[in-house]
Structures are given as C-alpha cells and as structure tokens.
C-alpha cells in the first residue's frame, strides 16, 4: 500500500517542495530588506545565495527515494510517450491485439454460456434423458417399466408435448404447453414462485385440470396478478385452475419444446400398457454414486429384457446427459469457431511480437547509449517490458470494448435455433481472462527483445548503426513468425472456404416446393365450438374458400404440418401384397394429411396422378399420395399408381388406401437430410383427423400463395378466419421464405463467422509480412542504395524484396496446407456436400493467400525501388 500511496502523493510532494523553497526565498528577502537593502538588491542577493533552484529541488527530490511503483509509473509514462511518437506502429499493434482479444472475448462468452455453463437446475450434471436412438420419444408402457425395473435413478419422470388453446380473455391464443409427471419439478430442484408444484395425486383423471405457468405468461396474460393462484382459465374448452407461477427464467424442457409456457399433470394410467404411441420424453436423475456408464448398462439390460417380452418395442434406448442433449449438436461448430478464434489470437500475438522485435532492434543504439551512461540492465529490461505491457494493456482494453460490441453483433445475427442463446452475456471472468492473455503476450514477447536488447554491447551497437547485420537471430525469428502466421491464416481460410462451399451446397438444395410468396398459419379448433364432431369437415374447406376470395391470393391449401417449420409424425405402414413385417419392423413414413390445393399452392409438383379432391370424403374409397422416394423404393420399375398401402395399426384390420399420385420429394424437417418415405392422406377422409378429440385433430395449417409480400396478407387472412368464428386461435404465422432462411440460419451464421475470422487472419498475416518487409527495407536502405548506385535496376530491387517476402509466404502456406490437411477431421462434422479435403478449396485458398502475400510485400519493395541512392547512402 505504501508505495502505492507514495506514487499518488508524489505530485503533492512536488508542490510542497516548491512552497518550501519559495518560503525560504521570501524569508531571506524579507530579512535583507529588514537589514536595509533595497527590495531589488535583496531579491538578487537572496537568489544568488539560494543557488540553482532547479538543482536544489532535484537533489532534494533525490532523497525521497523511488518506490517500485513510482518507477513503474515513470516507465509507463515513458512508454506512452514512445508509443505516441510512432502512432502508426501503435495503432497497428493495438488494433491487432484488439482484434485477437475482442474476437476471443465474444466467442468465449458464447461458448461459455452455451457449452460450459451448467443448466439452471439443481446438480444438472446428474440429470439424464432416456430416448430411443437418443432422440425419439418413448411409449408410456416402456417408460413405466423402465421406472419400475431400474435402480440407477433417484427419480424418473416423463413429459409430453401439449398445446393449450387459451380462449378465456380477449384474444384466443394457442399456448405452447407440456404435460409432465409430478416427478419432474422436484427432480430439477425447481419450485414455483407462487402457489405449489404438482403432487403425485394430481396425475389423476379429474384432478389433472391444474396448470403451472411461466412468469412471462403470468405478466402477459394475467397482469402479474398476485392472487392468480386458484383462478380458472379456459384451455381447449375446459376449465383449468392455476396452481402456481414458475420463477422468472425457468425453462423446461431445455432441448425440446423449449418455449412451453404452461405445464399440466400427465396421467398415464389409461395408457400404462401402450407400447406403440411413442410421445414421451423421459428424464431421470442419477442416484448419488451411480455413474452415467452404470446407468447405461442397467438400462441396456432392462430394455433387452423388455425387448424379449415385447419384441420391437425397446430397441436402442440411449441414456444421454441433459446438458449433452441440449448442446450436443452445436458443439462441433462452436469448437471449430473457438479454434479459429484461438488461431486469430495467435496470429495477433505473433504480429505484435514481431513488431516489438523489430522495434527493439531499431532501438539498439538508444539502448546501448543508455546502458553506457549508467542505466542498469535490470532497469532497462523492466522498462522495455513496461512498454510492451502498456501496448498490451491498450490492445487488451480496446479488445475488451471490441469484444463487447462484437458479442452484441453476434447475438443480433445469431439464429434463434441455437440453444441457450438468451443466456449469453459478457462474462467478467472471460473479460479478465482475455485481458490477461493480452498482458501475457506483452510480457512474453516483450521479454525476448528486452533481454536481447540489453545484452547488446555499446561498441558493436554504435558501430554498425543498428543496420543490416544487426541481430541475425532476431531476423530469423521474425521470418519464422510471419511464416507461422501464413500457415495459421491458411488453415483458417481452408476452414472458411470449406464452410462457404458447404453453405453454397446447402443453398442449392431443392426443397421440392417454391417457398417464395407463401405464408402459413395454424388454426386450432381444440376447445372451441368447431371441435364438435362433424364441424371440422365443414370449417376447413370453408376457410379455404374464404382465403381464395381475398384479393391477391393466388392459391390456398392446407396440411396437418408444413415442412420444416411444422411438427413431423412418423407412422408405420404396410404394403399390399407384401409379407407382413414383424412387429416394430414396419417401414415408417412421414405422415401428412392435406386438403385439396396444398400441392398447387406450394408448387410441389405431382409427378404422376392427381391431387386429393373434395370428393375424397369419408364415404369414398381411401386415397393416398406418396413421394417419389417411397414410390421408387417400394415399387422399383413399377407404376405406383393404383397400388395400395395401409397406415393403420398392425392389430386392426388394414384399411387400404389407393395411391392416386406420386409427389416430388420435399424437404421434411431437416433441411439437409436425404429424402425419406413420405405419404399424404386426404385429411377430410380421415375421421381421426376431423372428428377425434385427440391432439392430432386439434389444428390444421393453411398455406396461401400470393404474388406480393406474403406477410402483407396476414391481417386479411386472420380477419377471414375470425369472421367465421371469433374464438379460433391462430398461431405459427410464418412466411415460407423465412422458414427456409431459418433452416439455413445456423449454417449461414457459422459460415459468416468463420469467414470473418479467416479474413481477419489473412489481413493480420498481410500486416505481418508488410511490417517485416518494410522493416527490412528501411534497415537495408543503405545496401539497396549502394546496389542501385552500382547499377542495379529498380526491377531487381523489387525482385529482391518481394522474393524475400514470398519465401516466408510460401513456407507458411506449405506448412498451412499440411496442417489443414492433417486437421481436416475436425471440420467434417459441420460440412455438407463437400469433403474436408476438397482440393479445389485448398488450391483457391492457397492462391488467394499467396496473392495477399505478394501484394503485402510488393508495397515495401516498390518503396525500396524508389529510393534515391544518394540519399540512402548519405543517411545515417
């Protein structure tokens, strides 16, 4: 503390010394005047007596001693002065570090929030998810058996997708909702902020009409009413009591159905032996002392036994950590980005190190001279180190500011589909860590030149004028640094190039339909008058007619789930005339049901046959359209038209549907997934879609095509629906172009980020080569002048300088190509449609980087060629 205070007290002490000497002088003058001297004589005599005032003060100050911190302050001031004197050097070095540190701060913040920070539940590392093939839902019978037969779990619970049409209140609204067993909330360690959680007794028919709601919904729909607990709301036409309000920020589930705002109890007793209707996501908390591996083994044994009892029902059940479940599929991309950012930081550090090395050898003479007039070696090392630290601190501070800004930019551009994005914020520890990296860079790369510089002999330094022969070793080190920068930049550019190629390939995917000009919206009937049997068959076509009558509407159709944005249901089917597969072995097709006009509206071509018609009703023969993929797979070389399939459960007598059309393959849910079996039923023909009270019959999605902006149609579409029935909730209003853009958003975002980093890396490498070659040219000005005076052509000089620069670039590029090739595996997880060792990318990127290297070394070469030989020789 003491030197610290002394440091800040110094200014005060300087002022006091001034006062003390002034007082001395004043008293001396006063005495002399009192003795009879004139004012003027007294002043002159007193001053003479005092002597050299500056020297008096100087020797007095010398008695105060220097605290280490004061010396540090002095060095900092000196460092700042030097940096101010060469603004170009300072700006480039600070900017370089800022880029490295800033990018690191931003990306690290994202990685920390998404990958590293544990989920917001109690001991989240003990939470697991049990799903078929690690992602598919589970049937109630299986869940109940797992729960009963396993010993590894402290608790196990299940949740099911639900949707709740809120019809009490001003605007009907379809709320994303979920049903969950009473085990779930205690398992998460979550408690409502108001009211109570579910009890096991709530999982019972008659008692399950209670809900928990999010804090957000409470504020939005209930005006944050503190007495909300116990109030009744109408969901899907039935009365539910609000049981409690969850705390702000509570989210469940974290990886699926993440926007749920309402939770209700899940009563499974009626379905306890159902092993077909897979709709549950199963969650568990591992018992203390039980490892994930042990739980996996136990579940493998349990499911193997169940599979023997109920063949085809318990295949490939995986136990996955909840956190892994949430972030697993973004991890490869984030790690690639993190690697990229680390490499950019490395380049930035190499550049700054290079600049410091170059500067220190340029200052050999100054340093030697200072050593000669008595500066100690330690003192000079300290001082050069302080300069680097000042530089690193400035760069670090700028980088932190840049990082905060970059993070905001990142979040603004990031697709919403990235999990936990809302948790991302600038973390103080990350700020500190990246700042520390900047400082460490300053120390590490400041130290070498400092030691090197301080060991320079005066004689030698003064003799050679710090010119050509100076520090051959430093020169080699600099060239190695630049080559390394090129290698790293090349690796990054290869990565970015591959991402760009992959992104182009993604963009070229034909979704099968034409998204332009199409808007989709979901209309729910659950809980309204329209849910009565028979009503939907009338309502659905009536809405289509109203839509078609709206000016600007070119076509309208409807489907249960639109591709990409909508849900996807798989359904086993059987083919007429083929042996019946063993239970659980039936092929599964994506199950869609359409109203007439869907294919025309989407411009999804019917390759052969016809669309469903208004006459394909419940009484008429069953019809189905299949996609081209299914048609070719099941009936290769035959015409699928007229063939029959059944989609009803294996226990029922098959209801045969005749194939009336073959439809072009369309993208289903995953944009880049290869085509899979897909069938389209006539929705109005399926009573379970028009007259049942199940969730599959609760809503339908309309698609409308226009020539203009599809979003502009939305108010007219809503009005048309509400003119029929003001209580119908309308949700999921989306334009298809947005849906397609969203499907590619993650790839676009990753590509953009990696491209930016690669660009920065290439820029920094160019700065590096430019810096070194400029330095070489200025150091060798005399030699170059001599060559030119002896008849060398400017062209020769250019060749000499560019040759040296390109030697570094080539060596670096070669090393980079090898490194990129060796590291190609890292990229394969994030690429589509291009191999990680794509020769075209490697070639183009190498050529590009070498061109950059050429340009960056040509500039100093041209300066060298324009040197006036006489001036160059006379200088120094």
């Amino acid at each position, binding site marked *: 503390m003491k030197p610290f205070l002394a440091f800040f007290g110094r200014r005060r002490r300087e002022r006091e010394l001034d006062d003390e000497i002034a*007082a*001395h002088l004043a008293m001396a003058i*006063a005495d002399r005047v009192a003795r009879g001297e004139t004012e003027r004589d007294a002043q002159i005599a007193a001053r*003479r007596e005092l*002597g050299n005032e500056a*020297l*008096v003060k100087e020797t007095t100050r010398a*008695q105060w001693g220097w605290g280490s911190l004061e010396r540090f302050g002095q060095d900092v001031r000196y460092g700042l002065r030097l940096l101010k004197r060469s603004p170009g050097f300072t700006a480039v070095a600070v900017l370089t570090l800022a880029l490295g540190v800033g990018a690191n701060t931003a990306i690290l913040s994202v990685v920390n929030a998404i990958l590293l920070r544990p989920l917001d539940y109690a001991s989240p590392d003990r939470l697991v998810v049990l799903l078929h093939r690690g992602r598919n839902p589970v049937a109630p019978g299986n869940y109940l058996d797992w729960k009963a037969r396993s010993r590894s779990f402290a608790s196990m619970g299940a949740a099911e997708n639900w949707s709740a049409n809120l019809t009490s209140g001003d605007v009907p609204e379809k709320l994303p909702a979920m049903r969950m067993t009473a085990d779930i909330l205690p398992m998460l360690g979550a408690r409502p902020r108001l009211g109570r959680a579910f009890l096991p007794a709530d999982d019972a028919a008659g008692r399950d009409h209670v809900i928990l709601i999010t804090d957000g919904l409470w504020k939005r729909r209930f005006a944050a009413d503190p007495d909300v607990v116990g109030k009744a709301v109408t969901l899907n036409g039935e009365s539910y009591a609000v049981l409690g309000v969850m705390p702000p920020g509570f989210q469940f589930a974290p990886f699926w159905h993440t926007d749920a705002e309402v939770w209700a109890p899940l009563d499974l007793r009626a379905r306890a032996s159902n092993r077909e209707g897979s709709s549950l996501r199963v969650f568990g908390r591992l018992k203390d002392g039980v490892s994930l591996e042990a739980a996996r083994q136990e579940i493998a044994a349990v499911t193997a036994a169940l599979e023997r009892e109920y063949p085809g029902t318990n295949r490939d059940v995986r136990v996955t950590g909840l956190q892994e479940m949430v972030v697993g599929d973004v991890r490869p991309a984030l790690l690639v980005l993190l690697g990229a950012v680390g490499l950019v930081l490395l380049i930035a550090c190499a550049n700054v190190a290079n600049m410091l090395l170059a500067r220190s050898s340029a200052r050999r003479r100054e340093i030697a001279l200072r050593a000669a007039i008595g500066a100690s070696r330690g003192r000079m090392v300290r001082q050069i180190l302080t300069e680097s630290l000042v530089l690193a601190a400035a760069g670090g501070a700028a980088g932190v500011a840049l990082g905060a800004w970059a993070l905001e930019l990142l979040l603004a551009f990031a697709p919403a589909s990235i999990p936990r994005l809302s948790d991302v914020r600038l973390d103080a520890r990350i700020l500190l860590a990246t700042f520390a990296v900047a400082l460490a860079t300053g120390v590490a790369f400041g130290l070498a030149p400092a030691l090197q510089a301080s060991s320079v002999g005066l004689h030698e330094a003064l003799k050679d004028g710090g010119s050509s022969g100076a520090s051959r070793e430093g020169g080699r080190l600099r060239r190695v640094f630049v080559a390394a920068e090129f290698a790293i930049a090349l690796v990054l550019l290869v990565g970015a190039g591959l991402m760009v190629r992959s992104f182009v390939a993604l963009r070229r995917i034909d979704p099968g339909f034409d998204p332009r000009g199409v808007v989709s919206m979901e209309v729910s009937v659950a809980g309204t008058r329209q849910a009565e049997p028979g009503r939907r068959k009338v309502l659905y076509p009536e809405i289509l007619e109203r839509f078609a009558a709206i000016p600007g509407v070119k076509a309208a159709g409807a489907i249960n789930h639109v591709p990409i944005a909508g849900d996807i249901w798989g359904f086993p089917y059987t083919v007429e005339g083929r042996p019946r597969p063993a239970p659980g072995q039936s092929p599964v097709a994506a199950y869609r049901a359409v109203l007439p006009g869907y294919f025309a509206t989407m411009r999804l071509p019917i390759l052969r046959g016809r669309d469903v018609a208004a006459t394909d009703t419940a009484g008429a023969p069953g019809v189905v359209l299949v996609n081209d993929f299914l048609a070719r797979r099941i009936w290769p070389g035959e015409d699928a038209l007229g063939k029959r399939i059944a989609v009803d459960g294996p226990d029922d007598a098959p209801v045969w549907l005749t194939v009336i059309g073959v439809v072009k393959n369309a993208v289903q849910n995953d944009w880049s997934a290869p085509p899979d079996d897909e069938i389209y039923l006539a929705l109005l023909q399926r009573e379970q879609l028009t007259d049942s009270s199940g969730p599959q019959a609760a809503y339908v999605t309309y698609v409308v095509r226009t020539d203009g902006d599809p979003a502009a149609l939305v108010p007219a579409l809503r009005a048309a629906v509400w003119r029929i029935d003001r209580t119908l909730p309308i949700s999921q209003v989306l334009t298809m172009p947005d849906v397609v853009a969203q499907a590619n958003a993650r790839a676009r975002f990753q590509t953009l980020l990696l491209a930016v980093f690669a660009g920065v890396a290439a820029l920094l490498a160019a700065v590096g080569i430019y810096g070194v070659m400029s330095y070489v040219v200025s150091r060798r000005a005399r030699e170059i002048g001599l060559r030119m005076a002896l008849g060398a052509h400017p062209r020769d000089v250019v060749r000499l300088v560019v040759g040296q620069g390109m030697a570094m670039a080539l060596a670096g590029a070669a090393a980079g190509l090898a490194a990129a090739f060796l590291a190609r595996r890292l990229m394969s997880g994030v690429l589509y449609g291009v191999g990680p060792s794509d020769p075209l990318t490697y070639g183009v990127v190498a050529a590009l980087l070498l061109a950059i290297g050429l340009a960056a070394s040509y500039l100093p070469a041209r300066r060298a060629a324009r040197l006036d030989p006489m001036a160059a020789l006379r200088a120094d």
Partner: protein
Amino acid sequence: MVDRTPYQNPIELLQGTLDLLVLQTLTWGPRHGYGIAGAIRAGSNEALQVDTGSLYPALHRLEREGAVGAEWKTSENNQRVKIYRLTPQGRRKLTQERTRWERLMQAMSGVLDAPRAPVTDEA
C-alpha cells in the same frame, strides 16, 4: 554555482556534520529550513554557511529516516512554511552523532596537540 561567497570566512562543512548541526538546532525548538540555516549561521558567528542545496536534501533525508517530523503552518505574513521538529528517534540519532563527533574531536586534537614524543602506554 555561487561565484561570490557571501560571508567573510566561510568554512566548508565536513561531510556528515550537517545532520548533527541540524538536529542540534532543532533541540532548541521546531523551526523551518530558513530558520535552521539562520540559527547555524548565528550560532557559529557567521562562520558556518549552510548551502540550501545541502540543507534541504538533508532535511528531507532526515524526515524520511524519521529523525525529524514536519508540519505545515502559515506564517504571520501568510506564507505557507514547513516546520521541522525533532522526533524521539532524532534525539537518539543526535546523541549518537554527538558521541561520534566528540570522539572524532578528541582523536583529532589528540593527534594535533600531541608532544613530539610518541604517546606512552599509560597515556
């Protein structure tokens, strides 16, 4: 620096004696730098001149060592002046310095006043 000596018979102060003089002066009461210089001059009948270039470094060094304390006061003609005073530590230092000085004096005069014959054992 000073090309004309302001006093009649100036005596160069011996190395190390300034501290002693300053501390001794302060035993008569706290005073400022100018006052200390005046007291030494007066006490030596104008024979000892204290150069400001030596006085202030000495005062600041003694202050840092803790031998003197200092505080700021405002003089009658409204001048801010720094008043030095002796600390207990300074008093001890004065005793030491004084002893050292007296032994030096004895030794010096022993040599200077010695008879021609070398001193005998019992002297």
